[in-house]
């Protein structure tokens, strides 16, 4: 039966080729569109997947750029058991690079506390240096920077030259290449310089990257961090008076001033009076998986748009196959009459046409997946710094299965028509 169905398709090469083309385009489009969303997820995975630590941000901030936290909390966090390093980070947008607006792709100024950075066991940028060196504590207070290969290429800059950003000449001491759209947009600077460029005070950071020591997992660290901030209101920007006293140490002067501080805090309606909500804390702790989820939430609207676009293409392909199969059935009415005259049942005719449309669906799915996969690679190669499309094996398999189902469904109506036709009616009409 299968080989008969295949022969039927091959005996009408033009019609079969047109139906396959319609499906191939639709499935390739589906792969292409969904590879946008998968590309974002893949970028997040590859970007954050290697980071052993967790990031603390302002609750609800989608990215560190939009987050603000008190610098002082870094000291509290550093005292937690299991914490190896707390790295203070400040982010800002670079508006003008070499006198041109840096809009697409955007360029970000990444301010790093270079003393803390020196202590990190793993740093994404440090691992990906391709020229020069990464910044270290000796670069504090300077205008030295590390840029990505993409930025160097875009602005035609090489190691040792200056890059002019928002009116400041930055000396390029290193070039990195992460091959990540999220990371390769950064210009790494001393944290003080980014605060100045971004008009941020010294009491504010965007986020903390907390690296655990070798004996502590990121899950355990996350729990400890949440416990640390439990009971503190999201509106509270400073530690409670008791925490502040504790942080100040146990010198005689502190002991003398502590009661006064408590009285002053009570009179001013300090942080203790803000009634905390049990499940709210003033920081959000994000590990690798959390970043993926966060980006997934951000791209939900994109997914909806892609689904709508895909459904349009799929509907066109569906109608194309229905049309092809209907034409095929109409042309072959006499053939079905002959088959029925020879004892074929309606169900067997149905099965034959079902096989034919399933073969079309499978063929279109395979071709569409291949074309879509090649197209994503071609687009990535053409625009390496602007877009990252990723057609995962799962997406390709789902597209293939979807195409098969589409083919079978599209062939169902024509098949039912052929199956219900009485043999003599078919022969007479033929």
């Amino acid at each position, binding site marked *: *039966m299968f080989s*008969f169905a295949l*022969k*039927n398709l*091959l*005996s009408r090469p033009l019609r079969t080729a047109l139906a396959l083309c319609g499906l191939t385009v639709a499935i390739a489009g589906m792969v292409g569109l969904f590879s946008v969303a998968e590309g974002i997820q893949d970028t997040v995975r590859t970007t954050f997947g290697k980071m052993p630590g967790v990031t603390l941000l302002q609750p609800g901030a989608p990215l560190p750029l939009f987050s603000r936290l008190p610098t002082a909390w870094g000291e509290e966090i550093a005292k937690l058991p299991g914490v190896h390093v707390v790295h203070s980070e400040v982010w800002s947008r670079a508006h003008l690079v070499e006198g041109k607006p840096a809009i697409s792709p955007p360029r970000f100024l990444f301010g790093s506390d270079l003393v803390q950075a020196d202590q990190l066991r793993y740093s994404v940028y440090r691992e990906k240096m391709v020229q020069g060196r990464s910044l270290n504590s000796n670069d504090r207070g300077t205008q030295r920077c590390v840029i990505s290969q993409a930025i160097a290429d875009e602005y035609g800059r090489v190691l040792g030259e200056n890059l002019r950003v928002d009116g400041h000449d930055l000396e390029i001491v290193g070039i990195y290449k992460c091959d990540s759209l999220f990371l390769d947009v950064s210009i790494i600077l001393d944290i003080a310089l980014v605060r100045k460029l971004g008009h941020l005070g010294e009491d504010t950071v965007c986020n903390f990257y907390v690296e655990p020591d070798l004996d502590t997992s990121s899950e355990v660290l996350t729990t400890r961090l949440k416990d640390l901030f439990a009971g503190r209101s999201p509106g509270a920007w400073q530690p409670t008076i008791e925490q502040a006293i504790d942080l100040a140490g146990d010198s005689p002067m502190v002991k003398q001033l502590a009661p006064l501080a408590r009285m002053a805090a009570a009179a001013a309606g300090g942080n203790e009076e803000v009634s905390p909500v049990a499940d709210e804390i003033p920081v959000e702790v994000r590990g690798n998986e959390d970043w993926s989820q966060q980006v997934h939430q951000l791209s939900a609207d994109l997914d909806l748009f892609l689904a709508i676009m895909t459904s349009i293409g799929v509907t066109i392909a569906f109608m194309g196959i229905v049309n092809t199969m209907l034409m095929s059935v109409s042309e072959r009415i*006499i*053939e079905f*009459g*002959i*088959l*029925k*005259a*020879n*004892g*074929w*049942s*309606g169900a*067997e005719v149905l*099965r*034959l046409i079902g096989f034919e449309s399933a073969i079309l669906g499978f063929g279109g799915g395979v071709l569409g997946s291949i074309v879509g996969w090649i197209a994503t690679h071609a687009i990535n190669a053409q625009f390496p710094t602007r877009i990252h499309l990723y057609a995962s094996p799962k997406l390709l398999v789902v597209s293939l299965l979807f195409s098969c189902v589409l083919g079978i469904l599209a062939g169902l109506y024509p098949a039912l028509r052929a199956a219900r036709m*009485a*043999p*003599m009616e078919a*022969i*007479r009409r033929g």
Partner: protein
Amino acid sequence: MVDGSDSNTIDVTNVVKSYRSGLGEVRALRGLTCQIPRGKLSFIVGPSGSGKSSLLYLLGGLDQPDSGEIAVFGRRLSSLSKRERDEFRRRQVGFIFQNFNLLGNLSAVDNVLVPFLPQGISAKLRQEAVDLLTQVGLGNRLDHRPNQLSGGEQQRVAIARALLKRPLLVLGDEPTGELDSNSGAEIYRHLRELRDAQGSTVVVVTHDRSHIQPGDFVLTIRDGGLEVGNG
């Protein structure tokens, strides 16, 4: 004998059949009653539009009468379910059409095997198809497509297709209508040989009485009824 019908005859009792055509309703058979004997080569003759082909398709279960009864060797066709009727056609009836009705994308041997494609083709069945084609002189044309065969050769493929299932009943609708006289004679020779070999009953609708031989059964139909003087 089932329900009063004879297991050695095809019994047609008061059959009425009409169908719609472009000009309106055509009454093809008007209360036809007849008997066709088993194991013979029977001819249904008569002028065009007399209802010959309609009767033939009713005998093969391809169509159903509006009223009346047809029993094939004791088996009432009206009592069969759709599935049983399909099975009846698949196992017990072989059709030979005037315009051959072979499937253009299949080879000669695959065309012969068409009735059995849904069940799958065993090596034994394929060999039987090859043997049948060899018997009708197409042993060297097994893999030819219909468009690579002459009209006579195509009709011989159709005969082999009809006979592969060793049917009780072989029905031919003008099987030599599109062939020259020599090819036509050859077709009847093969039909008679295979009928003798398999013991099938062969019923042929034809305009051409030249192939009728003594001992053949002849049924003459006119205006949807039996012409007086049949037998």
